[in-house]
């Protein structure tokens, strides 16, 4: 720290001493500057730490707060129960057929009401998660739909009669601020509906308010049908039972199933046997042979005995628990439709005895034979907490609170145990954020980003589409920017006179400071409509530009040397300008020609490349040809320059001997034309092969055209990064020692050979790091992407479609995300991923630069 000696003449030889104040100042400055410097650097590293800290809770499990209450809730044990939303009441349907409301913390019985109209005893209960309906069957062969609901109204005075009020299902609760509320337990009922004289197990699920489907098993077999409601006189809805015209008896089913469930859409009925067999019955199948879909081993069917089954939230997925502690999710989906396994996870060690699906999200509570229970999320596969109450009889019922902040367990002796939970972010896990998830409503596991959700369509937070969008935009931008910037840097570093360079470089650098919001605005307002209107011309420009320039260069070489010399470097520069302009101008007619040749629908209608992209007409050929041409051309030129070069050289020599200098140029010219023609032919061949194999580019790199697309963003983002790449690459080229150039020229190399074989290899590390810096900039660019794309998080390679990048996603969604919610943290994770990407890019650039600097140090 102190190699320079801060308090200089502390006690100098002359005997004079430095004033204490000066020393204090020096000391203070040293402390302040050191701590200030350190603080600045720490603050910058703090960003990384803050991002990590903000995103980390996404991956953490839940926290168990311990058993917060234990009490006896009565002699009867509940067959089903639910925790009220405000987390202080427990509604239990006991096996004597009575709904009882208890205070969750004390266990005090607040009120009770019989579940069924005639106070019958239920035989089986099937809940409909999320909707609150319970399908309850009785021993008399009827079933009834029941929905308990707690409502409240403010009251003035508690009066006398809490016990009296309990009679009609209400109770009064006082709050700390002295206000009173009267809570009422209302039971909504539909039915009873009579199907048979014997005992039944029935499940019913609602499609709409007025239409429900049901499935029932009795001792003969399976009965399915629907309940349809009609508004009767007096506004009351009456339901009528209609039974499907097919019946499945035990023989057809292969035995009486132990559980049966109807799906919410009314089409499927799932039948489950304790042996482990699961089938799906298609109620809409017209052919009896196709009616029953059997779960097969290839779809993950287990041979383990099934111990419990229930329908998940949304009434699409069947959840089964097995004897080994595993939980599996089953549903009919995919193409072709089959009964497939969505989920299989072993989450406990003993047999699963019950599964209680969540009413708000896909978090379930699973009870086990060893009296433990696990809170588990179906989508993130995250085991949130495990609870294991001491001294507990076998579980009778389990329930989680709607916000996943409590688990209630009741044993067969009526002992209730309440556990508090801090659930954390149940929907996010590494698998959910980066993996394919089998969401309901999709044919296969997918990467989806969709941050708004509802009870049945949960928010989907896969970052993969965003990362894909980021990379797609970056790659297209770099494809455009890197060649232009690096070639420009070579010219201005090697061939441009200092006088001109002095003006050229700052002009391009000025462009680097152009705010990206301006570029984004121009992209959306000017470039996007321009590209839409002039698409063939813009695409063709990529070929005509370089071609015209190259041809012009050949033509220039054919001018006799003395005439060229008269024009001088300025003349040559002017010629290059002219050639470039000509290349651009040529694109105008050439674009139309290409469109007419390749993209005409044939029936005399106007040729339209956008029509072809939309798939209105035409085959895959033109697209493949155009996509293959640049690749074959580059390959052929490369092969030509390396393998065939000696052949051409001898040919050149022969022609020069025969015809003089002009002949040599003619052969060069011919060589170029030959290469291009060959490239065209090869491209055609490649295209034919690919087309014959049945590939269509419109499924991958091309596709329907949307105005704000990847190409536009690539062009504008390219413009944004060109100056950065250019400046750094140019500096790298200029910093190559002049002695190397002199030596190379001295031994007879041409300036071009010097540039390519001597200067470029030395400057390569600098150029690489220039490209990496540009890449880093493109990855994080926000405004251009935000303004020039539709910001749809889709994953397609199509360069004419929109996308959404990580940065744009943050900009769009962060202002609306509630602090510390899952969404907020997912956005911080986006930021962290972005940070990590740029970190890797920049560090590798730095690393390469350091490495090559050492290597080149000898020069």
């Amino acid at each position: 720290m102190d190699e320079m000696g801060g308090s200089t003449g502390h006690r100098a030889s002359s005997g004079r001493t430095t004033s204490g104040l000066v020393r204090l100042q020096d000391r203070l400055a040293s402390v302040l500057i050191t701590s200030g410097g350190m603080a600045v650097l720490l603050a910058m590293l703090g960003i990384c730490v803050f991002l990590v800290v903000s995103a980390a809770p996404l991956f953490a499990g839940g926290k168990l707060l311990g058993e917060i209450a234990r009490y006896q809730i009565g002699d009867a044990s509940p067959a089903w129960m639910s925790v009220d939303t405000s987390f202080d009441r427990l509604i239990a349907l006991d096996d004597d057929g009575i709904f009882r409301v208890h205070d969750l913390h004390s266990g005090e019985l607040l009120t009770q009401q019989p579940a069924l109209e005639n106070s019958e005893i239920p035989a089986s209960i099937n809940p409909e998660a999320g909707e609150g309906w319970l399908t309850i069957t009785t021993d008399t062969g009827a079933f009834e739909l029941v929905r308990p609901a707690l409502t409240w109204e403010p009251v003035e005075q508690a009066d006398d009669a809490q016990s009296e009020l309990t009679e009609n299902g209400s109770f009064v609760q006082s709050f700390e601020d002295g206000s009173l509320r009267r809570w009422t337990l209302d039971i909504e009922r539909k039915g009873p509906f009579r199907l048979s004289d014997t005992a039944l197990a029935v499940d019913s699920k609602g499609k709409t308010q007025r239409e429900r489907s049901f499935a029932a098993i009795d001792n003969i077999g399976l009965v399915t049908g629907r309940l349809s409601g009609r508004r009767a006189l007096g506004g009351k809805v009456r339901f009528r039972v209609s039974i499907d015209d097919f019946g499945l008896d035990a023989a057809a089913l292969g035995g009486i199933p132990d559980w049966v469930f109807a799906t919410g859409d009314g089409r499927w009925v799932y039948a489950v046997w304790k042996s482990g067999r699961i089938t799906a019955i298609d109620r809409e199948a017209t052919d009896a042979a196709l009616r029953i879909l059997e779960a097969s081993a290839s779809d993950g069917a287990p041979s383990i005995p099934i111990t419990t089954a229930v329908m998940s939230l949304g009434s699409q997925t069947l959840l089964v628990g097995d004897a080994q502690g595993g939980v599996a999710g089953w549903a009919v989906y995919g193409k072709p439709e089959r009964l497939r396994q969505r989920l299989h996870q072993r989450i406990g060690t003993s047999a699963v005895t019950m599964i209680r699906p969540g009413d708000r999200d896909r978090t379930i509570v699973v009870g086990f034979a060893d009296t433990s229970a696990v809170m588990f999320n179906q989508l993130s596969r995250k085991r949130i907490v495990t609870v294991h109450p001491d001294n507990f009889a076998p579980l009778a019922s389990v329930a989680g609170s709607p916000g996943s902040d409590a688990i209630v367990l009741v044993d067969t002796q009526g002992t209730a145990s309440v556990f508090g939970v801090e659930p954390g972010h149940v929907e996010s896990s590494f698998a959910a954020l980066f993996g394919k998830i089998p969401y309901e409503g999709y044919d296969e596991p997918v990467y989806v980003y969709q941050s708004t959700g509802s009870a049945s369509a949960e928010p989907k937070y896969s970052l993969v589409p965003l990362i894909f969008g980021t990379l797609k935009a970056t790659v297209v931008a770099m494809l455009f920017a890197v060649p232009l910037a690096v070639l420009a840097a070579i010219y201005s570093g090697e061939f441009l006179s200092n006088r001109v360079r002095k003006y050229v470089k700052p002009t391009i650098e000025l462009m680097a400071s152009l705010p990206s919001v301006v570029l984004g605005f121009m992209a959306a307002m000017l470039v996007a409509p321009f590209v839409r209107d002039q698409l063939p011309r813009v695409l063709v420009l990529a070929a005509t530009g370089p071609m015209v320039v190259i041809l012009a260069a050949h033509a220039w070489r054919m001018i006799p040397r003395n005439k060229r010399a008269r024009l001088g470097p300025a003349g040559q520069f002017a010629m290059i300008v002219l050639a470039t302009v000509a290349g651009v101008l040529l694109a105008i007619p050439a674009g139309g020609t290409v469109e007419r040749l390749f993209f005409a629908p044939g029936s005399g209608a106007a040729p339209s490349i956008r029509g072809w992209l939309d798939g209105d007409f035409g085959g895959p050929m033109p697209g493949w040809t155009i996509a293959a041409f640049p690749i074959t051309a580059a390959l052929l030129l490369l092969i030509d320059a390396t393998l065939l070069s000696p052949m051409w050289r001898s040919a050149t020599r022969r022609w020069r001997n025969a015809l003089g200098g002009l002949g040599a140029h003619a052969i060069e010219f011919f060589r170029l034309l030959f290469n291009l023609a060959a490239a065209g032919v090869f491209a055609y061949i490649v295209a034919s092969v690919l087309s014959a194999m049945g590939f269509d580019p419109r499924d991958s790199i091309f596709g329907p055209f949307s105005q704000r697309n990847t190409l536009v963003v690539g062009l504008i983002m390219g413009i944004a990064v060109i100056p950065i790449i250019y400046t750094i690459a140019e500096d790298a080229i200029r910093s190559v020692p002049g002695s190397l150039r002199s030596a190379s020229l001295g031994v007879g190399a041409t300036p071009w050979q010097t540039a390519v074989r001597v200067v470029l290899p030395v400057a390569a590390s600098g150029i690489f790091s220039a490209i990496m810096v540009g890449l880093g900039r493109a990855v994080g660019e926000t405004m251009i992407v935000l303004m020039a794309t539709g910001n749809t998080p889709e994953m397609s390679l199509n360069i004419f479609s929109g996308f959404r990048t990580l940065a744009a996603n943050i900009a769009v969604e962060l202002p609306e995300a509630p602090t510390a919610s899952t969404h907020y943290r997912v956005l911080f994770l986006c930021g962290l991923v972005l940070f990590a990407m740029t970190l890797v890019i920049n560090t590798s650039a730095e690393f390469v630069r350091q490495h090559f600097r050492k290597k080149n140090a000898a020069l």
Partner: protein
Amino acid sequence: MNRQATKTQTHKERSTPPSAHGEPAVWLTGSALITCLALVVVTMFIIASNGLVTLWPRPIERITLRSGEILLGLPMGSEQFTPAEQDSQRIAELVAAGDLEQAGEDGTRTRLRFRLGNRDIGRDAFVWVPEYEIVSRDRPEDAVLVERDEWGIFIGVPEAVIVRTRSTESASSQFNPAGTLSTEFGTGPALREVVGESDGIRTVDSAVRIAQGPAETLETYSEIHGSFAKRRARIRALQKSEIPSVQDKLAAIDWRVRRAQMDTDIKPSRVTVPVWIGVAMSSVGLGAVGVGLLRRKHVTPLIAAVRTLCVLLAIAGAMFAVLERPIARGGVSTERLAEVVAQADAQRQDLRAQGDGLLAEIRTLEAADETVRLEIIDPGLSRFAPAEQSRPDTPMRLSQARRLIQSNTLGFSGRVRLYLTRWWDFLSRPPGESPGDGGVFPVIVGTVVLTLLLTVTVVPLGVVAAIYLREYASQGIVTSAIRIAINNLAGVPSIVYGMFGLGFFCYTLGGYVDAGPGEAAIGGMPWWTLIVTLILVFALAAALSAVGADRGPVKGGNGLWSKVARSVSLWSWLGCAGLAGYLIWTTPYFGGFFAEKLPQQPTFGTRGILWAALTLALLTLPVVIVATEEAISAVPGSMREGSLGCGASRWQTIRRIVLPAAMPGVLTGAILAMARGAGEVAPLMLVGAVNLAPTLPVSGDAPFLHGDRTFMHLGFHIYNLGFQSPDAEAARPLVWTTTLLLVAIVLGLNLFAMHIRSRLPSRGGGI
């Protein structure tokens, strides 16, 4: 091609094949450079031309269509288009009727774009008119363009100025429904209407046409417009600033009462105010004694010990003063609360009376404003510009027309004058009600304040960090790691800084300022043990520094003991600072400065200009550090050695020799940071830029600079106006102007930085 090439050719022509010259490749590279340059030039040209042309007064054209419809509009250019199917039929009919020539080979037709205005009477802002539908185009001299504050421009023909008055007369006199009346503004024919009659008095409303026809109307307008504009300005000032100010004061009173109520819950401090003041004063005194002792030339061990003790006690006292509850939060007694409430009630009454007075003034002024009306007629729709869209039968008030422009009779100098006036309006006025008009004054103020705040923050930090890196830190693995970190952070996307700003500055730091540490105070530890630990660590650090530093003629020996002592002391100091920060952060006595407004109205715990400036400061820190470091390293080592050799201390050397020499570099860094800050948008979207800020971040009320307020920013304004506004089409011309302004500012700053940099002493002096 340069000279060398020609030289090589002269000798080696024969054996050099043409491919060796790589002419096509060289041309390609040249062409790439030209393309890059062209991109720059074209971009700048587009921005400049679009931005400059927007405010230029265009002529008003009257277009008569084949359908007989008449449009008055500003021509905005033309384009070729391919007619749609129904248009093709129409064209075919016209061609068949011989009214139209056959189209060219490609079947395209010309169409013209007009800006129409008059949106409040149902016109589109812009229309495309196919050329073949136009019968005639001309530029009527009496057409005017009306600039208004609401609903954008209106184009029409001025028809009349009407004064509406109410008068009373005796009911017995004969009622004269028409006649000539004179008003304070002029005399003209009147239409009179009886609106009430009672007690023999008749109340009559008269509409007096004091000007009739375009010329007269314009003349009258220019005569009397001034006083109306003044009155309008007064009304606006009342509505926009004076009444809100009264409302703000009322709200502040409510908050004060709430604060007092909250503070009654707090137990009074155990430390009485005199004790607190005593401790604070004595720590200041001890500090002064300690500093005074430093001036002693001969230091005996006793003096050194006393000195250290003084400083220690001073710092302990200061910690106590900071951590102990500040005087203002010493709990509020119920009597005091009653007093506060009573006082608040009195103030409220005063303010309400004041507010009523202002409202009455507005009513009076508006009544006067209502009297004079201006009739400007859209000849196509034969409707006049209404006062409000909901009152189509009432002509606009004269004061609603900010300016009447008779575009077609304006000479060139008039146009130039108008153009400049419009630029001035654009720069000095707030945004209008509709996105297409108004100015950017608050936007510029927001941008400037933000940029200045950012510069004030980032420059000291950056310079300190650069000095540390160049002059203090030993050059080794640590510094090169730090340099890599800085390089990396320069490449971190700006949106990530925005997230950090939102999460850390706004929510964490701002939340702390608002509400204090809340429940999250020190865990189970007795609080005083931490202070004791702090003092012990501090003493250790001080002692070790003394041991490590004050030995031998050269500061700090190179012995092992000194080295260990120095490094331990450094860590102790760091620990000390960390512990002190933690203590301050978790002090249970700090209840936040603005807790009374929570949770409805966070003050600093939300987005605001201060946090935006800090975020951008962090973002631009690498720029300043790199520029300053470069400049410092360019200061020749000989200058430093000379200074040190003359006996200056290190700090003196830095302050008097190094920093002045490096000043241009620091300035360059600052300007580059400003340019970056002015042009950055993405992070601002997250930390405080808004579409329409109700107030400026600076004002005449204390504390003058309001760090908690949201603000408007040029870059965000472009994004917002061009993409988020309901009528993006109408807003586009102004977006171009705003873009030009932003680009001019950013590029100007960059050019300035380049200019300064070019005058920097070239590197190579070395150390």
